[in-house]
């Protein structure tokens, strides 16, 4: 099996708080991440795709096309945004886990629609100390 991985990054703000919980409850669960004014990260994304090699180009996907797909499915929606105000976040708290699930679903659909590849894995890096992976590539 062959997998191609591209790395991207974007900066975004978020608040880790469940709107239906009280402020005290959110403080207890999310700690300083619940600050109502928000905070932000330089999120890193590692997008891994797999599929047959194109007979003419010898590629799973053209890197430039994957760049366009990331722009459309993720960067355009979330770069330099307060994630809590963007669909589908809100009552869905924009944790790294939920960001990975939302973005991997959007990337999987766009990759499938626009190429012969399929999404194999997405890694979302929130800080140098934590990341979340969703997919099959170990």
């Amino acid at each position, binding site marked *: 099996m062959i997998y191609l991985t591209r790395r991207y990054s974007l900066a975004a703000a978020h608040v880790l708080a469940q709107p239906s919980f009280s402020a005290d409850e959110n403080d207890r669960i999310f700690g300083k991440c619940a600050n109502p004014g928000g905070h932000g990260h330089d999120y890193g994304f590692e997008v891994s795709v797999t599929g047959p*090699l194109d007979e003419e180009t010898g590629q799973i996907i053209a890197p430039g096309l994957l760049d366009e797909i990331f722009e459309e499915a993720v960067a355009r929606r979330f770069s330099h945004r307060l994630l809590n105000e963007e669909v589908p976040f809100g009552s869905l708290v924009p944790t790294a886990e939920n960001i990975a699930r939302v973005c991997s679903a959007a990337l999987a659909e766009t990759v499938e629609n626009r190429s012969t590849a399929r999404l194999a894995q997405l890694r979302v890096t929130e800080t140098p100390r934590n990341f979340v992976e969703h997919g099959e590539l170990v």
Partner: protein
Amino acid sequence: MGKDEFRGKGRALRVTRSIHFSTSLRYWLDDLSEQENRKRFGQDADRHGHNYRLEITVQGEPDADTGMVINLSQIKEVAEREIMSRFDHKDLNLDTEYFTRIPPTPENFASLIFSLLDQALPEGLLDRVRLHQSADLYVDVLRSQS
């Protein structure tokens, strides 16, 4: 979950060694005209180069006496012979015969590297190669699960 339920329990260990090499290349098929090569491959049809970083991952159980899956000096020796001597400070089109009919995309290059290393290492030992072409692009070739 207790530590006995660690997902990796009972699975083989993986050991990785990295090497670096610098190589020039272009995407160019001898059967195509210059115009066709340029149309198909764009700027990659022009000669350029990369600082490749290769992670070689082997898997297995550590030897009871040595505590090693394989002596890393053996991987170093195989990597030197099969990869470094062939590709470091060489041109993939001019100095090797692998890329006359297929372009040296990272997918094709990583597949070639996997098969060169797999043939040179003890059977079944090689688990994966990860070829970094730049800071933001890499290719993994994993042994098929069949």
